[in-house]
Structure formats: structure tokens, C-alpha cells
């Protein structure tokens, strides 16, 4: 362990310190900073030159000065202490307990940056996770080891959706151990409180680990929060054999923090001022989802991000969409119409859905029903635009049926209460009920044998 303390800070700019006359500094090593009042802060070396180190300070540079503040390079990389005892606990964004209980006794320490999973060691995700939310289970199925983000906007109830998923998510017919890791980055106190209260009220806290970085906590800490959370997830999944669902919210705040550091370092910006390495940086987080051959556990991610101005081509949702396996889009329009959860299934997608559904996994008619509802709803929605122009009278009888379908799809299928945990069977049955409005010949995407078996028989 290195002992030398330096009081040679040359410059403090934003979250960065430039320390001079240093020796033996390595890239990425952890730094301990003590201000003139004896307060300790943590940092990490971002750049090391001969005699000079650039350090990012996680807790922010407030109260630091260039005269008395001392800096010690620890020679270690950023590690997090891990143990099975973490479950049920609440930690800060840097992994310190903030629930009033003592520190955990570590069983293991792991580097927060993790390592890439060897593609030949991965197991392809195909186990259905029932979230109890029809719009997800039926239309955009989540599977174990997937990363499926919620694309939302300011003012929409994405937190409620996320909390509901965290509460209800389970794999059918198996008594395996399951944990939820909740990583909050820059969310408000109220939002954090909402999650905590909800988890405690419903007993979900017993299988939960929370890492909380609030809006008024240092922005730089947010760079580390998801890394700590994912390291804990990997530990619980691949060392303890648990199935871990990680909720990361809000990724937009994370990316802003990334941009803040890049700007403080005078880096050349890419699109909209975000650093050119943002794709790689995000991939290093999202790619930590997965399953590994021969290990029982899994890491599934639901990152939440708020799209600035609802713009899906903004760099944050865009780069995320290229890495994640689909997206669940939360819609302002549906929310305005009082539909909960306001999930717009048309732009939503789960790329791994086909592997996780069907006979033996969900139900044999699942794929057909989902395709049929998608296309009927799409048709109904485009007819709505037409009605706005020519009026409903101008439509054919068939078109009117599609309009009815679209409406009831939103009201009866998408809509459910915040506490309603709908089994996949129930969701599919509701789907059949709604589809029965349409003439049988229009159900082209479902196999005839399933129509015979599942379509409710009409009396007329």
C-alpha cells in the first residue's frame, strides 16, 4: 500500500483535480482525498502523466483547495465489497450503507468495472419472465438475461411501471431465488422515496438491494453507481446463483454526468456534446446483462431513460437502442388519455421475445395472438387519423370494427391497475376476447387450430 500523501494540487476544475509532482501513479487507480477539515472524499485517476495525475472526484470538489487538501493514491482499482447480506439493504451511490445499519462484512471484493463476458461462454436468453403487465408479457416479452429499457419522457409514470415490474416479476413454475437491484442515478428525493415506500409496503424490500444517488448528490458519483450495482448483480447471479433484475434509473442523468466530465477535460465532443466514447461506455454497462453457460444465475436489466423532448433519435435513446435488445416506449398520448400503464406497443419491441414464448414457455397461441393484436391495433390507429379527416361515417363496417378493437385494446388490454398482477394466461384470454370483435377471416396471423381452440364462440 502506498503511503505518500501529496499536497501538490495545481488546479481544480469542475469535478477534476490536477495533482503535480506525483510518482508511481497508475491509470484508473483509486484516490483518497482529505480536505482541510479532515473530510475524506474518493476519486479515480483519469489520466496519468510523468509527475502529473488528473483525478476525478466522485463526491464533487466543493471544500477542496490547492493549499491544504491532501491526496493519497491507493494503488488499487475501485472495488466494491460484496456479500449475500447485502440483500434488503440500502446503500449510497458509492456503495456505503445509508440505512443506519452497520457496514456489511465482505465475502469478496470485486472490481467495479467488471470484465466482458466471453461470447462463447454466454447462454442465449430464453426463459420467460412474467411481469404481470399485459403490454410487456404478451406484446414485448422479457426474458432472463435480456436488457430491455423503458424509453420515457419527463412527466410520465415510468417509475410506477418500474416499481410494478420489480414487485411482480417472476419466472413461472420455479422456486428459484430471485433478487432485485435498484440503482438510482440523480433521481429526486421524492422519486427515491416513492420506490422505497413501495418496496417496503409490498415486502419487496426483502429481496432488494438499493444504491441511491440523489439529484443533489455529486453528479460524478453517478458514473460509479451503475457499476457498483452491476458488480453486485454479477456477484449475486454468478457466485450466489440468483436471478437478478437490475433497474437503472435514470440513464439520462448518467449520460449527462459523462458529458460533464468530458467537458471538464476539454475533450472533443461527439453528437450533441456527448463524448465520442459514449456508445462503448453504455455498452460496458448494458452488456453486463446475460446468462453464462454452466452457472445457474442470470442478470436482467431494465434501464429507464427519459428522452429529452420525447425525441427517440436523441443520442441517449439512440445509442441505447443499438445496444439493448429492444425497448418499451412509454407514451405521452396514452398517458393523457388516462391509460395506465401508458405503454405504446407499436414502437416497442423485444428482440428476444420469440425465443421466450410458445408452448411449454407461455402458451402455444402466444405468438399468433401478439402478431394479430399488433397488426389490428396498428390498423385501428391509422384509421383514427383517417376519421379525423373524413369522419367516422365514411368508414366501411370492417374499418369500424378495427376502430372498436383499437379502443378496447387500450381500455381493456393495456390498461390495468397498479396492483394488478396479470398472469400470462389471463392476458392472452383478454386478447382473444377483444379479437372476437373482428371477423374470423381477418385473423390471418393466427393458425386455424388455435382459432378453433381459443376464440370465444359467439351465440349469434
Amino acid at each position, binding site marked *: 500500500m502506498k503511503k505518500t500523501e501529496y499536497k501538490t494540487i495545481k488546479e481544480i476544475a469542475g469535478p477534476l483535480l490536477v495533482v503535480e509532482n506525483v*510518482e*508511481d*501513479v*497508475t*491509470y*484508473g*487507480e483509486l484516490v483518497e482525498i482529505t480536505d482541510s477539515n479532515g473530510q475524506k472524499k474518493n476519486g479515480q485517476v483519469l*489520466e*496519468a*502523466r*510523468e509527475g502529473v495525475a*488528473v483525478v476525478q472526484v466522485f463526491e464533487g470538489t466543493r471544500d477542496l483547495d490547492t493549499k491544504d487538501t491532501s491526496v493519497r493514491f491507493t494503488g488499487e*482499482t475501485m472495488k466494491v465489497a460484496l456479500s449475500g447480506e447485502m440483500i434488503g439493504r440500502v446503500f449510497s451511490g458509492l456503495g456505503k450503507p445509508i440505512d443506519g445499519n452497520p457496514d456489511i462484512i465482505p465475502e469478496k471484493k470485486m472490481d467495479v*468495472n*467488471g*470484465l*466482458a*463476458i*466471453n*461470447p*462463447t*461462454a*454466454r*447462454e*442465449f*436468453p430464453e426463459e420467460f419472465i412474467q411481469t404481470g403487465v399485459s403490454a410487456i408479457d404478451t406484446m414485448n416479452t422479457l426474458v432472463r*438475461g*435480456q436488457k430491455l429499457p423503458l424509453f420515457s419522457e419527463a412527466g410520465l409514470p415510468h417509475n410506477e411501471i418500474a416499481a410494478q415490474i420489480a414487485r411482480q416479476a417472476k419466472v413461472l413454475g420455479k422456486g428459484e431465488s430471485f433478487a432485485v437491484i435498484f440503482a438510482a442515478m440523480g433521481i429526486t428525493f421524492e422519486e427515491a422515496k416513492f420506490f422505497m415506500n413501495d418496496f417496503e409496503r409490498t415486502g419487496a424490500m426483502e429481496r432488494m438491494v438499493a444504491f441511491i444517488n440523489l439529484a443533489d448528490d455529486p453528479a460524478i458519483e453517478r458514473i460509479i453507481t451503475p457499476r457498483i450495482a452491476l458488480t453486485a448483480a454479477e456477484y449475486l447471479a*454468478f457466485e450466489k446463483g440468483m436471478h437478478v433484475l437490475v433497474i437503472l434509473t435514470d440513464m439520462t442523468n448518467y449520460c449527462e454526468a459523462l458529458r460533464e466530465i468530458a467537458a471538464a477535460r476539454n*475533450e*472533443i465532443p*461527439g*453528437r450533441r456534446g456527448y*463524448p*465520442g*466514447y459514449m*456508445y*462503448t461506455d453504455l*455498452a460496458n454497462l448494458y*452488456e*453486463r446483462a*446475460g446468462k*453464462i*453457460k454452466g*452457472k445457474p444465475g442470470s442478470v436482467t436489466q431494465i434501464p429507464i431513460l427519459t428522452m429529452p423532448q420525447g425525441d*427517440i*433519435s436523441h*443520442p441517449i435513446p*439512440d*445509442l441505447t*437502442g*443499438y*445496444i439493448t*435488445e*429492444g425497448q418499451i416506449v412509454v407514451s405521452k398520448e396514452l398517458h393523457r388519455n388516462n391509460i395506465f400503464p401508458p405503454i405504446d406497443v407499436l414502437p416497442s*419491441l423485444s*428482440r428476444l421475445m420469440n425465443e421466450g414464448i410458445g408452448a411449454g414457455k407461455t402458451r402455444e397461441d402466444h405468438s399468433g395472438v401478439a402478431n394479430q393484436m399488433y*397488426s389490428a391495433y*396498428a390498423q385501428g390507429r391509422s384509421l383514427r387519423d383517417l376519421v379525423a379527416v373524413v369522419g367516422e361515417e365514411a368508414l366501411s363496417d370492417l374499418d369500424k370494427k378495427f376502430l372498436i378493437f383499437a379502443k378496447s385494446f387500450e381500455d381493456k388490454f393495456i390498461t390495468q391497475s397498479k396492483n394488478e398482477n396479470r398472469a400470462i394466461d389471463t392476458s392472452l384470454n383478454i386478447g382473444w376476447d377483444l379479437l372476437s370483435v373482428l371477423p374470423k377471416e381477418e385473423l390471418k*396471423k393466427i393458425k386455424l387450430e388455435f382459432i378453433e381452440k381459443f376464440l370465444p364462440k359467439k351465440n349469434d
Partner: protein
Amino acid sequence: MKQGKIIKISGPVVTAAGLKGIKMYEVVRVGEQGLMGEVIELEGDTATIQVYEETTGIGPGDKVIATGAPLSIELGPGLLSNIYDGILRPLDLIKEQSGAFIARGVNVPSIDHNKKWKFKALAKKGGEVKQGQIIGEVKESETITHKILVPFGINGKIEQIKDVEGNLDTVIAKVKTKDGLKEITMVQKWPVRVPRPTQEKQEPTIPLVTGQRILDTFAPLAKGGTASIPGAFGTGKTVAQQSLAKWCDADIIVYIGCGERGNEMTDVLENFPKLKDPRTGKPLLNRTIIIANTSNMPVAAREASVYTGITLAEYYRDQGFAVALMADSTSRWAEAMREISGRLEEMPGEEGYPAYLSTRLSQFYERAGRVIALSGKEGSVSVIGAISPPGGDFSEPVTQGTLRVNKTFWALDKNLASMRHFPAINWLDSYSLYLDTVEGWYKENAGEDWRALRDKAMELLQKEEELQEIVQLVGPDALPVAERVVLEVTKIFREDFLQQNAYHEVDAFCSPRKQYFMLKIILHFYDQAMDAIKRKVPIDEINKLDVKNDIARMKEHPNETFEKHMEKIMEKIDKSFNKLGGGR
């Protein structure tokens, strides 16, 4: 060996001093762990190095050792069926050493040096040989016979050569050169950033047959040509690349997963070994090399992965094979360049990409081509690159830089995909500039009037697009009869020609000759229909013709016996229309 020390480190970019005389692109070993890096900038005796592995824990003062050689890979039998990372380290060997997660500083050989091969000499003792010539062969897999080439820089008289069974390092021949006696083994090295030389480049006149009607008939790619598949996320680029890999008539497939999803790569890795080569019935993996550098693997290795891939492709080309290289996705490669350029604090071009982006893109695509190799054999490298434009915006630098040098454009269309029209490639937006060069081949192998038929079909489809706009406004009944016939026939084209079922045992691959016959049948139907309406036959009568069902089912008729089948359908078309009669 030159040794310097680090003076600055920031992420994957390291600056080292004291390396006088080191060359650009020379490979160095960094730090105690000997992490592999490459020189990308020189100033005096100070070198800037991009490191292929995570650099945490390395600091100023650590040593940097020059290896004296540029980034090179080993070439020889044993490459096929393997799965590599971006700098040609076999992923399964990495797994053996470091477990499920990829640790740093793993050093594994690219090709198994212990495996025994039966070398069969093709050159004779006393013969003169030049670099790049074939001196022997080994059976690399059930389907591929690997040619052993004289390494570059060796020209002279064979002193000794014989059939032997040995491993890669066994001496198979000795050649007397003006610099003395040289021993030849079955393995050689090649710097990845340098194109392998050839005797001459040739015009790409032979199509790369994919068996996909939309591609072969409307936007054909030539062997040795380049194509791009751009599309926003969710449009099915990866699926398109994979089905091309399965069906195209190249001898060797090099598949580069460059900066893509880990689970997606796993899907490829799990499925490729299961795929049967449609032509031999043997596993497709027997003639495939996969490079998998996922988005979270080191960015510098991602940058190198496309060069590694194309060098492998060129090596097999030089043995006389037709090689198809798929790069998914070139945008991730460009982003790797941007990231490294940013760390070098270079002045950025558009959207932060380095100003040399389009130069690099063109240099890469120029390595495609149909050539006469130094061995005298004819071979080709065709490159198919996927592009992931941010927000689906085609005006961005990577798409634009690629389109300038690429001659084939396959436009994936989200609307088609959501209408369940597969393959979801838009026929109007796609294009190929190889139409003229491959026309001769099609004349010979498909039919004399192939081009005329193809152009006529395209014209009708173009016309349909215009008509559809009118139909949206006034409905189809308001159109003149002749135009309604166009709509009917183009509907046949969409449903029975452009759509193709990748899972149907016959329809999955449609031979060029069958494609030609199908075109001929549909256009014959069109001609007859136009003729009939002139005779005042009502269009509803035409629409009711039973022969339309025969046309709809023809895609399921086997390629081999299709010619006979076509004659029957043609006859039936003629008969049906004759029966309709009209004013004759």
C-alpha cells in the same frame, strides 16, 4: 529490442518516450503484463500507442517494448470453423484460460500448432517458385482444401519438398534463394493493415448468387464487389447478414461481429454450427470464420477487427476461393476510430468523426475485388457491410462515406417488415451498379433476355408506386383498365416473387435460372392480360383465372425441374386467355 517508458496514459491511449526509430503501426508490449498495443502517432522518439486491452493499473514509468513488427496475424490451415476476437485470439482458448469473463493479458495462439495435417506437395524439387505460389495443399475441412502458398519475400529454387504429415511448424520445403536457404512451413504471418498483393484486379463480372430474388434479380452483387445494408435499429440487418452467409455461393465466409450485442453473437455462435451448408449438406461452419468483438470488448481491438477479417478473406482469395465477408456493423468500427481519434485530441471532422474517416472506409472497401492472385488462381473477396445510422438518418458521415465507394445498396424497410413482407428489402430504394457488368453472366446462365425482363419488371414496380398514390386518393376503380392490370401484376410480383420464405425447403434458395423463368412467367401473364383487355375482356375475368394459383405456387417448385414446370404454366396461361376470348 527497443524499450521505452510510459510518460502519459489515458484510457486505451498510452504515450511512451525513448522509442527512437520505432515505426508507425508497430506492435508494442505495454507494462508488466505485456498488453498488446500499436503505434498510431509518432513525434520525435515519443510514440502514441493504442492498447488492445483494458489499461487500468498501468502508469507512467512502466516499460514499453517494441516488437519490431506491425500488427500481424498467423495464416495457415486450422483457421476455418474458429471463433476469434478482434486480434485473432480464439475465444474458446481464452475461455479455457480465464473462464467466462475475458481477463487481461491472455496470450493464446491463433491457430493450433499441434494439430497434424497431411501435406501433399504440388511443386517439384528443382522447380523455380515465387512468392505467393502454391506449393502444396492440405485438407482443412471436409469441404475445403487449403492451398499452401510460398511466403512473401521467398523466390528461388526448391531444394527439398515432400509429402509429410506434420504440424504447422514442420518444415515442408526448403527453397534456395539469393539470401540463402529458406525453410517453408505451413504457417505465415501477414500485417493486417496492408492489402495482400495480387497479379491483377479484374472487373467483377460474375454475380455472387444469393438465391434471394429481390437481391439477385433487382440489385445483384458481383463476386468481388461491395454492398451495404443500412438501417435503423430494429430493421433486421443482422438477420439479413446471417441469411446471406447461409445462402450465398461463396466458398468461404468471414463473419465479423464488430461492436455488436453479446447475446446476438451468442445466437450466431449457437446457430452457425447447426446450419447445414445447403450445397454440400455439411456444417456451414466448415467454411466459415467468425470474428466476435462485442461492444464491451476493448475498443482498439474493435478497430482492428475489420482489418483482421479482410486479411483472412484475402488469404483464402489468394488460394483461389470466392470469399464473402460480412461486417456487422461498420458504424461501430467508425465509432472506434472516432473514440481513438478523440483520445489523440485530433481535430474532428463531421459529428466528431476523424477527418480521415472516408479515406479509411474507401481503403477498406477497396480491398474487395475479383483478382488473379500471385498463385495464378482466380479468387474474389466480396464485402457486405451493415451500417447502423444514428436515428436512421442516412445523411450521417458513415453512411455517406460508404455509399460513395459502395456499388450495391440494399435498403431495409421497416414498413415492409411490419407488413411481414420478407425479405424486408425495398426494391425501389435498393440499387446495384453491377447490373451492366454481370449482364453477360446472366445472359449465359439464366436467359438471353434476362436484362430486358428484369428492367421491364422494375418499370412496372416503379409505375405501381405512382399508381398507389392515386389509388390512395380515389380508389382503384377509378383507374383505367390498363393501369389496373399493372396493379394486379405488381401485386403478383410482390407476393409471389419479391417475398421469399426463408424457412421453406425449396423457396429459401431460388436459382438464378428459376428466377429468370419466374420473371418470364409473370411478364407473360402481364402481356396476355394487356392483350386481353384490348379485346375488351373484363378485368374481373382475368383476376379470376385459376392460373394465378399456379403462379402463386411456382416458388415452391424445385429449382432443378423448373424449366419443364414453367412450360406447363406458360401453356396454361395461353390457354386460359384464349378461353376468355373477347372481340377476336
